[in-house]
């Protein structure tokens, strides 16, 4: 027989992960502001047209995001082995707890510096023009609904 008890942590992990995902979606549904502009109601909120030729060129912004994703994603391969050996190396046999902790915090701090850098450089800002367009659209819609309200009143 399998001893299923050993797999309990994995089950818990699944539950926590699923719960986290579901709760995030729910919370944003419940308390997030809702502005149903035509752009926002498109299947891809990033602005990609869902219908049309698949062979058109798309914005270089997608590429930038992908590049940054690759860079930050790959750092995980340093975090995981660290987490795996931490207990052993921090234990009585080696006693390197502080060192390992400080080093990983330094590593994460450096990653954070990179993050701050791309943030301030405006890479995460999808684009100035797109934002202004969206704001204009929202303003227009707000104006329309305001007029409708006034007319109703």
């Amino acid at each position, binding site marked *: 027989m399998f001893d299923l008890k050993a797999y309990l942590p994995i089950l818990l992990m699944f539950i926590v992960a699923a719960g986290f995902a579901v709760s995030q979606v729910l919370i944003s549904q419940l308390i997030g502001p809702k502005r149903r502009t035509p752009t926002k109601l498109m299947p891809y909120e990033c602005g990609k047209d869902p219908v049309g030729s698949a062979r058109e060129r798309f914005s270089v912004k997608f590429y930038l995001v992908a590049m940054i994703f*690759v*860079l930050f994603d*790959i750092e995980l391969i340093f975090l995981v082995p660290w987490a795996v050996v931490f207990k052993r190396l921090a234990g009585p046999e080696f006693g390197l707890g502080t060192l390992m902790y400080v080093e990983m915090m330094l590593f994460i701090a450096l990653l954070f510096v990179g993050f701050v850098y791309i943030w301030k450089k405006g890479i995460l800002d999808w684009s100035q023009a797109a934002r202004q367009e969206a704001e204009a659209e929202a303003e227009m819609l707000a104006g329309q609904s305001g007029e409708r309200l006034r007319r109703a009143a």
Partner: protein
Amino acid sequence: MVPLSWYLALSAVLFTIGAAGVIIKRNAIAMFMCIELMLNATNITFVAFSSFFRDVTGQLFVFIVMTVAAAEAAVGLGIIIAIFRNRLSLDVDDASVLKY
């Protein structure tokens, strides 16, 4: 168990294919893919030795190579995009302003 020499032969063949590709291919992206092939062929060698001798050094090396390859990919694709924007071609034979 598969003998060590098979892994080494595989990685040597892959490395050679990659090196030949860099020399033969004329498209910058394809050349870049061949370079990645060379790096990953090297990773096979590292992992093969590492597992054969039950040693962790080779696997560590692979981690570092993977990170470096990601950084290289980011920079390399950035360079390729820049060149494409300026001349709308990725053929390295077209990149000949600097020949005399």
